[in-house]
């Protein structure tokens, strides 16, 4: 996919979907909708919808995969065949292999896995509808699912995308913006530790633009973080 900047994505400061540069799409969060899982969440950013569930902590087999001192986190990110306009053939590909890995690494620093020798926590992300920024939507969902599964966490993990379209720095790129951006950045942070746990960028940016985008991503994550907290409180308030 080559980045083109000739598509008009932003006209006099307003994006094609009527958003301001620093405005996210409508964000929805739902927790605990998959009863068979230990924890689950559904997060949508506009038309991008991610389901996440967590199974475990549970014993890990085959045994040679076990770590004697700590538990491990395994993550599968997957896109449903019907989640995109042209059907995606099912099963893992190179893209999903990489995203599974970076999603795991984005969440791992927030978990207390030392308390769980020899077990695994399995996280599954299914993108059921895709319109850009799927990996960060998935990370937000999986973070909530882990919390709702009762896995001890240092904090939630909050993620968002930022990028540059038609020369303007924006947040939460939709599919069309993503495909035609000059640059895009996937970002996740563990807010109370100020620790960046996902950072991927492609495109062309000056250092100054990049720094501005990182600040913008951090500010945006702060807002998303509040929503995640509220969603959890909403679900579990009053429960003993």
């Amino acid at each position: 996919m080559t980045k083109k900047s000739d598509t008009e994505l932003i006209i006099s400061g307003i994006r094609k979907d009527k958003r301001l540069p620093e405005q996210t799409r409508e964000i929805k969060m739902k927790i605990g909708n998959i009863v068979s899982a230990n924890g689950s969440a559904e997060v949508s950013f506009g038309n991008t919808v991610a389901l996440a569930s967590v199974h475990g902590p549970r014993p890990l087999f085959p045994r040679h995969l076990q770590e004697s001192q700590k538990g491990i986190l395994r993550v599968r990110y997957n896109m449903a065949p019907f989640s995109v306009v042209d059907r995606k053939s099912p099963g893992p590909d190179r893209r999903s292999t990489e995203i599974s890995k970076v999603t795991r690494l984005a969440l791992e620093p927030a978990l207390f896995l030392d308390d769980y020798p020899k077990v695994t926590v399995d996280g599954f992300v299914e993108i059921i509808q895709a319109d850009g920024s799927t990996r960060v939507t998935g990370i937000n969902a999986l973070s909530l699912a882990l919390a709702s599964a009762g896995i001890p966490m240092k904090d939630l993990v909050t993620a968002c995308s930022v990028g540059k379209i038609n020369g303007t720095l924006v947040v939460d790129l939709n599919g069309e913006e993503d495909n035609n951006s000059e640059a895009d950045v996937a970002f996740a942070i563990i807010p109370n530790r100020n620790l960046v746990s996902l950072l991927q960028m492609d495109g062309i940016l000056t250092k100054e633009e990049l720094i501005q985008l990182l600040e913008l991503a951090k500010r945006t994550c702060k807002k998303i973080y509040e929503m995640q907290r509220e969603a959890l409180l909403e679900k579990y308030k009053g429960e003993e």
Partner: protein
Amino acid sequence: METYALELIQNGKRIDKREFTQFRNIEIKDSVIDTAEGSAYVRMGNTQVIVGVKMGIGTPFPDTPNEGILSVSAEFTPLASPEFESGPPGEDAVELARIIDRGIRESKTIEMEKLVITPGEKVRSVFIDIYIIDNQGNLLDAAALAALSALLSARMPKLDVEGNIIRGEHEGKLSVVHKPITVSVCKVGDKLFLDPTKEEESILDAKLSIAVSEDDKICAMQKQGSKGIEFDMLEKMIDIAIEKSRELRKLVK
């Protein structure tokens, strides 16, 4: 050995006595494989990588009818490390290939428009195959350097009147117009350093790999490792990568 490497780093030293921003010796040889259109061998300390560039003919992707095809793959061959197993590329090999792919693609290193034979129908394809021969740390930076050198050495196969490749004959060089350099900045606690050995790699908190173009612009970035990076350290890491990329670029012909 690992704990020792960690202790040293924390005390501002390294296992092989290098400065924190010093790379191991780098040797680059291009055109090392006769059967490939372009190739390069890179040795970075004891890490060895060979990259071969093969070119073919293909159908362009529907969304880019006026561009050639670029494909990057990496093989972590079992000969390179006791940890590498035969079989389809694992997670790390896939990630490495995709990071290098983005560094080349996003910086527009190759003039993809010049690879078109018939718009929308027939284009040249460029396959970059990364072969890890010996893994002694910092595979990504070594592989990126080898990929760039291989591309710079690549010749275009000659086409007959029907647009089919005549093997063994060439017409000019592949049009390579940028020189992105990837520098991975490693982090242990508050210490930042470059070009980790295998021992140092095993004790990293995290690593930020940054591809920088010749005009100091950032064209790709990937955070690796199982711990986070303090937000306030990011700018310093970017600065280190930009500065080092200028030095490494001089090694590429």
